[in-house]
């Protein structure tokens, strides 16, 4: 998952960035509204954490402009403004959620997870595909109550595909979202991780659910 953090106050920006990275997200940061808007337009993020009071362009302006160009990326407003009218204004301008400073890092992560799930129409934090069950909170994969151990990168890859079940996802998209890099010259790393993941998913002889669409990318198939 790729998250954009737009925050001018560096201690918050650094802490949120580090937290998200440690939670397996690819993170880009912007220090003002203009930079944030530019990144949001080009980045294809799964979620944007946007401060309200930003130099050059306020968070509300960034939000309004993104919604004007029909960008539906989930946006979490992060602000010190706690008045009801401010919350209403933020939500009316198209924010998907609103978190008042100071906030608990755990709550921020939970809200980001919820926004991403909602964005991909997966309201339940436990995504079920066939006999597989992916707990997006505990970050655990089980099959018939049996835990399948995954590395952080394998988990991120599976979660990314699970949220897009049935959709073909290109190798560069995966690379971009999981590593936060637009340069896909190293995207064969994705093939390696797909191979690791397949091996674990099919270790008990189960039918293949992670398919390759030649020239297009990968798709996770199975009844959810």
């Amino acid at each position, binding site marked *: 998952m790729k998250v954009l953090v737009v925050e001018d106050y560096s201690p918050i920006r650094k802490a949120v960035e*580090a937290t998200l990275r440690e939670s397996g997200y690819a993170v880009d940061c912007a220090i003002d509204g203009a930079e944030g808007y530019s990144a949001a337009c080009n980045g294809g993020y799964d979620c944007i954490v946007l401060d309200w009071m930003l130099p050059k362009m306020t968070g509300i302006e960034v939000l309004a402009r993104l919604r004007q160009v029909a960008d539906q990326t989930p946006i979490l407003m992060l602000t010190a403004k706690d008045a009801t009218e401010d919350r209403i204004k933020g939500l009316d301008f198209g924010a998907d959620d609103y978190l008042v400073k*100071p906030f608990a890092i755990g709550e921020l992560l939970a809200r980001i997870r919820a926004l991403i799930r909602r964005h991909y129409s997966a309201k339940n934090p436990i995504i079920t595909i066939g006999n597989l069950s992916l707990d997006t909170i505990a970050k655990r994969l089980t099959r018939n109550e049996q835990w399948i151990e995954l590395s952080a990168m394998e988990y991120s890859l599976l979660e990314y595909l699970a949220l897009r079940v049935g959709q073909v996802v290109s190798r560069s998209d995966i690379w971009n979202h999981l590593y936060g890099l637009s340069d896909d010259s190293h995207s064969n790393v994705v093939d390696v991780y797909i191979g690791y993941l397949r091996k674990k998913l099919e270790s008990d002889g189960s039918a293949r659910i992670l398919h390759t669409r030649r020239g297009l990318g990968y798709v996770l198939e199975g009844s959810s």
Partner: protein
Amino acid sequence: MSTSLRWRVLLGATLVTFVALLVASEIGNVMLRDGLISQLDERLALAAHGLTPAFEDDGSSVHFEWEGAGVGPQVIFRAWDASGSILAESSGGLSIPTRVAPTILLSQSTTETIKLSDGSNARAILINFLPKLDTHSEPLSENALASTRPAPPVTLEVAAKLADVESVLALAKKRMAIVIGSALLLTIAVLWPITNIILRPVNAIADRIRSLDVSELRSRVDTTKCPTELRAIPVRLNELLGRLEESFDRERAITANVAHELRTPLAGLRATIELAETKSRSIEYYQRTLRDCGQMGRELESLVERVLLLARIDAGKVAIQDDSIELESFLKSTWESVVQAANRDSTSVVWQVPIGTVFRSDPALLLLVFRNLFSNALSHGIADHPIAIESEKDHSGIRVRITNGCDRVDESELPRIKERFYQHDLSRSQTGNHSGLGLSLCDDILKLLNGRLELNLPQADRFQAAVFLPIACVGRLDIELDRT
């Protein structure tokens, strides 16, 4: 006495009605009495003149021959001659008491109110006339005729009791009292609904004002339906509400700004600490985290101190010290401390501060002012534009000017720059030392010292902050040191 307007209107109107009716009643009574007495007087005059033919002068004496000539039985009279001898008097129990009657000329009459022998009031007419000659007696001889005296004048007083008049007047008074009582009741009955109508706009305004509370400060009392006499009340009230609303808005804005300024570093602090706690980390990481937290703590401390100082200034709780200050060394040492704190090069400063200017003021408060102004000049100045610090003194006081390059502020912003929490960048991106409190604090401190802070743009790309300290504030201003 009731403070109710309705009761006052009712009481006032009833009282006025009562007094008016009472006066009218009295006037009516007097007029009625005068009319009745006038009628009685006429009747008495007729009676008196009816009696005069009964007096005859036979040449030797005047005698009264009563034949009932038109005088009613109720007529009481007495007649006497010039010597006071009673010539005639009415019979019956009542008589006119003997008294000194007014002197009247012949053929004239006078009326007055007297008391009869039984003490009752009566009206009396007094006439003076010559009795007629007795034509039935034998004609006098020439000698006798020559010796006869002239006819003596007779004074006749005729009286009639005033009981009828008084009973009519008493009856009239009784009826008038009933009329007045009824009129008062009618007045109250009519005024009650009328006062409702009259007081409706007053009650409407009172209800509107009663319903106002802190949550309704934005609403106003409608003055268009208000009576002209009362219009000043809602107009003034609306003005008061406006001022109150502004004050509450200002308070709210300041509270929101303080909350924002506190929340941002707090959020950074909390996020940084929580992140460090998520797992075991290296010593270097913890050291870096502690440094970051220390920096955020200092920002918070600085902000809290500024807010508290502003609050103390607002409450008039700042004690002003009085100490001797040498301007040049004070400014230079302050500048050095600011430059050191900011890790900046101080070579781009042009000093024009004469040495030896000594004055008395509060060095701690002035230190806060100049630290803020120097810090602003360093932070917001343009790198290749030197900062100029100059001072001058005249008979009115000391003026210190700090001028730096600036391309961010325009003329329209100047009046607002000294507002609390005002930031050039409306997004309030500056947290901590440049949170928009500095110039406001400088302004408030200088006002406390009877000085002032003037901000202007001497050139399009130059910003100038001028501190003026009046001589009255500094106590004395003289050259004490000769530092050639």
